[in-house]
């Protein structure tokens, strides 16, 4: 048999291999953020617990902090929540909540029930500020440095692995 006839078969196997990897490959969380290494967009939003008070990222100048986008309607956020509660207890870095397009009562209910990992949470009820941050889904987590620059973004629920291997070392480095 002519060996050349094997070429299409080999090509097919290679292509099928790529497609198979593609099937199991979740591109979520791997998109580069357009805001990486750029100043965190300014905002002033009401706080979830006390809407008469507001919060603005400018207040965090000089500190390294985490901004975590969440909502009570978001299933993966519920998965992430217990981890966040645990990490917040370690006191390694302050976590601020960004409640995205949520119902206030439902959001407060979730925090009462499952614990509150956040120093405070702001509510972005109509999602305008979320667009400024390029949020595409929840949960999303940003690490913001002392100068107010976004140094890291994860569009996946945080877990032990991400926390220990990516976030903690980065926070340590930024705090030096």
């Amino acid at each position, binding site marked *: 048999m002519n060996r050349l006839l094997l070429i299409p078969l080999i090509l097919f196997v290679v292509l099928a291999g790529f497609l198979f990897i593609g099937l199991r490959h979740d591109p979520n969380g791997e998109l580069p953020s357009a805001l990486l290494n750029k100043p965190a967009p300014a905002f002033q939003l009401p706080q979830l617990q006390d809407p008469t008070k507001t919060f603005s990222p400018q207040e965090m100048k000089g500190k390294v902090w985490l901004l975590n986008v969440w909502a009570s309607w978001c299933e993966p956020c519920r998965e992430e929540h217990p981890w966040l509660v645990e990490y917040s207890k370690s006191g390694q870095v302050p976590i601020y909540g960004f409640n995205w397009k949520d119902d206030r009562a439902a959001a407060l209910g979730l925090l009462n029930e499952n614990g509150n990992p956040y120093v405070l949470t702001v509510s972005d009820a109509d999602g*305008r500020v979320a*667009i400024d941050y*390029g949020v*595409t*889904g929840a949960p999303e987590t940003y690490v913001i440095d002392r100068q107010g620059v976004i140094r890291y973004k994860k569009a996946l629920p945080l877990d032990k692995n991400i926390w220990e291997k990516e976030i903690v070392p980065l926070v340590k480095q930024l705090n030096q």
Partner: protein
Amino acid sequence: MKQFAFAISLLVLLAGLVAARDAQPIDDAQLEQRMQALTQQLRCLVCRNETLADSQADLAEDLRRQIREQMKSGKSDQEIIAFLTQRYGDFVLYKPPVKSTTYLLWFGPFILLLMGVAVLYRYLKQRRETIREKPLTADERKRAEELLRIG
């Protein structure tokens, strides 16, 4: 002469005012059409194989709302696209811009085409050489004539 120049400049100014006033009131249907045309070229960040025009995702609705507002406030399509790429990167565009990171994407197919043409040219040249006609020898001619006669 001075008066003439004054009259001309007044005319130009008036023409500008009329043009500006003409451009201002945007018919809602017209705006909707413009938005449709623009959002057809943009990707929904949630369901990534859908355009921003077609997507029913919550985020897509928010983005359409914002695009509509910006159009009403007189922003050009270019400005709106810049607003989106600043936030979501080039990923939001279905047609990626030509820049150093996308050269391969844009010009790769033409390079492949050129390579294909080169291979084809060499093959055809080789083939022409191998099938070049050779004159028959005297023996061969004789045999051929015999065969033809029988036929």
